[in-house]
């Protein structure tokens, strides 16, 4: 029984091989690594909650092909990201870049955290000044 359970658990953990393109894009491991990195940072505009690495929409395929071509031709990562942003806008990148337009995305969490701490501090200070009710009622 234990053995069976163990085997079933292993089976549940098994993942089908995930490969969008049948062939490996590059022989050069360094290029392949850059390729994998870039395609997992780019949003498929057709299916907005997938990266182009995960999506099999043909737009994602076209973009992967284009990125492969650019890597082959020696474009830098930044040039490739710029290429995509010029055409599809900042939204194409999963990790928006720090710029005037996206600054709020980066600073808002920090500001909200500070605001929360300030409110908490205020409440705690007020509580500390309250008289302690000896009866505990």
């Amino acid at each position, binding site marked *: 029984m234990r053995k069976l359970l163990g085997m079933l658990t292993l089976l549940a953990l098994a993942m089908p091989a995930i490969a969008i393109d049948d062939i490996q894009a590059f022989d050069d491991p360094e290029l392949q690594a850059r390729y994998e990195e870039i395609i997992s940072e780019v949003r498929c*505009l057709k299916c907005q909650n997938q990266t182009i690495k995960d999506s099999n929409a043909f737009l994602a395929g*076209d973009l992967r092909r284009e990125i492969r071509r650019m890597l082959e031709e020696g474009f830098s990562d930044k040039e490739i990201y710029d290429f995509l942003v010029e055409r599809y*806008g900042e939204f194409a990148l999963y990790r928006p870049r720090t710029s005037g337009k996206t600054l709020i995305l980066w600073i808002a969490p920090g500001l909200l955290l500070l605001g929360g701490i300030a409110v908490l501090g205020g409440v705690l200070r007020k509580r500390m000044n309250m008289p302690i009710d000896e009866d505990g009622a």
Partner: protein
Amino acid sequence: MSRFLIPLLIFASLIAVFVVGLGRDPSELPSPLLEKPAPQFDLPSLLDPEQRVTTQDISGEVSLVNVWATWCVGCRQEHNFLLQLSKADVLPIYGLNWRDNGPEARRWLQQLGDPYVATAYDQDGRVGIDWGVYGAPETFLIGADGTVLYKHLGPLSWGLWEENFVPLLKAQGQLQ
């Protein structure tokens, strides 16, 4: 009183943000091409692969560039409108046949009618990428100087035309 006023105000403004946000269509993305020169292309003509359709053809007057494909349901939906618009002779309409099958696309134009002055055949979607196309139908309004004035996503109709294109065409002096 003020004890409740501030949280209430925060709550109300949050609700306002949500209401506006929910009313938006997340698939409608602003095109970064607006106010910029239309991306260059040089593609074979769909109807006559010997001929080329290029950016030169669409410049010189205000025109429409309509991205379509036979697999696209919305394209069939707007096709009648495009036919009527081309008959109304307001401005030339150019087609960008995107990621499609040539013979099928030619059959589509033969059977349903051809509203396009010329159709460029972008078989592998390379020009589509330059134009930031991510879902047909898409329609670009191109100014006489070749800048992208407007991009519309989804099937067109007379209502949408009046609402979104006519004011821009009036501003261009194209319509009275």
